[in-house]
């Protein structure tokens, strides 16, 4: 029963949703949207599980004084601080249990939650995102080392696209006559991005789409049961 009931629900809901894609008549037309709302409601309850997991894992690491255990205290303190001040004074236009906290807001410029969000959280987020610049440089270096025919082609295409997007690219090929305008670096760059790149991406998308159809059918028909922990 533990296995059969989820399989039955999956099959029924899967088939109804496929059919509803082609039937606009009520109630089929609204089913997909309705089920998305159900999913959000269940997710809302599941958030509690996530928070409990976060607490349990971090408390255990502090309790057993695992390596760098002090950092886990910071995680928990940050979590508790944000939740507490969010509950007390709210966030944005939503009031907390103590109202909007006007007196604190007048000093800080924002509500305490929003103050920490804009002045701490957003900067930490931006810091992580900015790491991408360095990682792209190191990854590009490895990708562009000409070892094989493919990596050489990648290198040439990348140089053309990069030059085509700079003023240097315009300058380098500006002397070419209009009859050879297709060789202007900005045009070459646009050509590479519009045709070969788009074609490659669409091929991946078509393959992925077929993969999704295949996987969905396997799950709906109960052939694929790994997501339930079975074979």
């Amino acid at each position, binding site marked *: 029963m533990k296995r059969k009931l989820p399989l039955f629900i999956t099959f029924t809901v899967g088939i109804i949703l496929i059919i509803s894609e082609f039937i606009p008549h009520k109630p089929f037309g609204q089913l997909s949207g309705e089920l998305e709302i159900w999913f959000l409601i269940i997710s809302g309850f599941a958030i509690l599980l*996530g928070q409990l997991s976060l607490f349990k894992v971090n408390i255990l690491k502090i309790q057993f004084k695992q390596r760098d255990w002090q950092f886990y205290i910071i995680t928990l303190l940050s979590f508790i601080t944000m939740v507490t001040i969010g509950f007390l004074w709210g966030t944005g236009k939503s009031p907390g249990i103590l109202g909007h906290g006007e007196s604190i807001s007048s000093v800080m410029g924002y509500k305490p939650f929003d103050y920490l969000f804009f002045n701490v959280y957003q900067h930490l987020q931006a810091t992580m995102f900015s790491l*991408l610049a360095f990682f792209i440089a190191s990854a590009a270096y490895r990708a562009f080392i000409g070892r094989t025919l493919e990596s050489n082609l990648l290198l040439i295409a990348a140089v053309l696209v990069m030059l085509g997007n700079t003023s240097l690219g315009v300058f380098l090929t500006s002397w070419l006559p209009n009859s050879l305008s297709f060789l202007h670096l900005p045009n070459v760059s646009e050509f590479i991005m519009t045709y070969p790149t788009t074609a490659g991406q669409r091929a991946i998308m078509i*393959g*992925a789409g077929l*993969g999704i159809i295949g996987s969905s059918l*396997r799950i709906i028909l109960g*052939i694929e049961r*790994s*997501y339930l*922990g079975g074979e």
Partner: protein
Amino acid sequence: MKKTFLCLFIFCACFLYSQEGILNIKDKPNDDGSALILSWDTTQIQPANIIIERETPNGEFVKILKSEEITGSYEDGTNIDPKNIYTYRITAYNNIGEIIHISKSKAKTSAQWFDKDKISLLILASLITLAILYYIFSAKSGKELFIRKIGGLESMDESVGRATEMGRPILFIPGTLDLDDMQTIAGLTILRRLAQKAAEYDSKLIVPVCRSMVLSTAKEIVKEAYMKAGRPDAYDPDSVFYLTDDQFGYVAGVDGIIVREKPAANFFLGAFYAESLILAETGFSSGAIQTAGTAMPSQLPFFVVACDFTLIGEELFAASAYLSKDPHQLGSLKGQDFGKAIFVVILTIGIILEISGIHFLKDFLTIH
């Protein structure tokens, strides 16, 4: 005299007939009866602007739109119910605000049982589904199917073995989207095989997740895998844990785990966005053997560069079937290949027709 009256009658009839066409209302096709399409053509009266109103149940007219366009159309989908008759009134004004025309039109809404716009989708989806089902049943009857090798999946044993030899953990990331994304489910199906291998080899598995729904599913999957491997005692419920829903907070957490724990094998299988390269490069710098898989075309180049093995698009979805070696599941992969063949044929014919100036196929396949 009779002729004069006859001519006058014909003129009036023609005039009235022509005036009737100013506001046309029709039911929106292929919908659930919750919208009407209003179109107006005032070229004959050339107004400065027009106002269209809808009659309420108590007989009043409520403004729907005001327009200065001579011709146009508008979809009214506010508070419209199926199988009801709705009356609209168009009032045309001249430059000094005088009414130069006023007329009413009505239409009945109706809900359709089939969306004709999606007939091409239905045909293609049916063809692919039938092909997949045919190959599944062929496989069931014992027909041998050839499936090409997928390097990233072949290396799974090697990665787990390496982790065991080095005495370091295995890190698995099921993407950053929730359970309603097929890539996450595909990633989790691979997690089951990986967890079973980890249990057999007695390797430590770390699965940090960023969605609560994924947390409960992943926990159940890993637990079942350990039981299947006959090692329920080795299962650590805290090996699958939640970090945060925030994209870069999650990246910071996973990067910290990679730097501190130094996993011997990293698996990034699921849906990824900007975090893909940060994770993969951190993993690369730690010297781990890395396998990634996603159907996000914009993130694939990053994984290809930074990881040892990459499952590209469909390979991610094929992984579970491929690893299970179950003929039923392998049959579905052959069905997908048939789908690809259909697409190749349609694309080739489409290119030839479009070059020839025949747009029938493109129009047929376009869903409006």
